[in-house]
């Protein structure tokens, strides 16, 4: 009898989303940072309509693997980041916060995620 692996619950998916966005903020390179953030949001948005259990599990496993890749590469990019930052970072420092307050940005991002995936704020945690 094959054991059926249950697909991840909503809280786990939310946690993965948050971790991916957090890891994107760790990149010192402007382009990679923006790309990781944008790609994560678009990918979760695209996958929100998945209903098949196995496809949800596959997407979640792929997401976890991408998180590991992002964490490793953020460290590598930080170790070898050039002294001079991109012009976009210098001119737009008012709008971007690379190392600043994390909690405010996370809450704003989390609320965006709620809107994207139509989750209720008081969903039962697993």
């Amino acid at each position: 009898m094959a054991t059926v692996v249950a697909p991840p619950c909503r809280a786990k998916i939310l946690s993965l989303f948050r971790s991916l966005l957090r890891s994107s903020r760790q990149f010192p390179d402007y382009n990679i940072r923006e790309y990781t953030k944008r790609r994560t949001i678009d990918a979760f948005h695209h996958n929100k309509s998945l209903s098949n259990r196995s496809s949800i599990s596959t997407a979640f496993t792929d997401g976890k693997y991408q998180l590991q890749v992002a964490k490793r590469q953020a460290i590598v990019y930080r170790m070898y980041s050039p002294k001079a930052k991109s012009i976009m970072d210098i001119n737009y420092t008012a709008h971007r916060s690379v190392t600043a307050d994390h909690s405010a940005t996370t809450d704003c991002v989390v609320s965006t995620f709620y809107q994207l995936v139509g989750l209720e704020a008081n969903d039962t945690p697993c």
Partner: protein
Amino acid sequence: MASKILTTTLRRSLTLKTIPHIRPLSTATAAVTEPSDEISMKGVKISGRPLYLDMQATSPVDPRVLDAMIPYFVSRYGNPHSRTHLYGWESDEAVEVARTQVANLINASAKEIVFTSGATECNNISVKGVMHFYKEKKKHVITTQTEHKCVLDSCRHLQQEGFDVTYLPVKNDGLIDLNELKGAIRSVTGLVSVMAVNNEIGVIQPMEEIGEICKEFNVPFHTDAAQALGKIPIDVNKWNVSLMSLSGHKVYGPKGVGALYMRRRPRIRVEPQMNGGGQERGIRSGTVPTPLVVGMGAACELAMKEMEYDEKRVTKLKDRLLNGIRAKLDGVVVNGSVERRYAGNLNLSFAYVEGESLLMGLKEVAVSSGSACTSASLEPSYVLRALGVDEDMAHTSIRFGIGRFTTEEEIDKAVELTVNQVEKLLTNRFGILKKW
């Protein structure tokens, strides 16, 4: 317990602040802090790294590709041709996996892929190798006037050896005339070489139609698909190509690696340009660089997954760029066909503006005029000349390259900088701002 929590939080907060650039205690009394962010190179001072809009010259390595490559530099450093130990076996396995990944992107079989050092080497093998192999019976090569320098140079080399080469002209939009191609094919034609996506103007040639013509006349068809890989869907069977040159660093992979597709049915034979131990089926001897090849394979697999997403995004950004510039400036001409082009390559000419001064003023944007291999010379690009563009418009052309990592803010900033610079040059030249 509380002390443990305290130490972990303390450690975490300290690491966040001290990972980058720790300055040792300086004994300099004059408190002149050098602006560590300012870059001064070749007489130009800029405050930070320019924004990169030159994707046709090369593309940044995707972090996912780098992640796939690093193990093969650090621990799995074996030679894939060593048959006697684990290092060789695991390296060989990685090369074969990469081969399949590249083959899947172009709908070919893994046995038809040969790894080389780049698209230039692939083009050399294709043009010179095929003609030297069939030199008894085939003496004629057909190519276009807008090909990459390496193809044109190989053809020139063949001409010096006594072969006959026809350089097909292109129409004003950059596409070749299919009837002219049919007319140029003779019984001794050994190869037709047409690049899929032009690196300077971005036009996409009618590959399926050319493939049909070559099939009808039974002439091998070679294409340089370095700029097309991962950007437009490629199918070697639909296009009926016998040889295809692919490059790693145009698909967000590492530099120094490429792949040559060689059809097996019907088999195309080439004379090898690199002789040695018979690696890569004797076509290209030399140790296969495992990390680079793994990188190219990972880049191709990524490109297959991301092609649709990237294409939509790049088209949107290109429209934003073009509309932004056209809204503020007149006399902007897009070089090359507007319908049959790859969106990520935008070649614009600005009327009444001098090209070199425009480029010198755009130091905060990394763009190029013409291709990277011809940007050293002062002559206008031969591709634009082949299109029939006037000398002065050809001098003032700029190529914007948009890719996977370009953002909307970068496009807006590029529009702003370009428009400012062009207006400044127009004002200087005429005393008044010339408006049409």
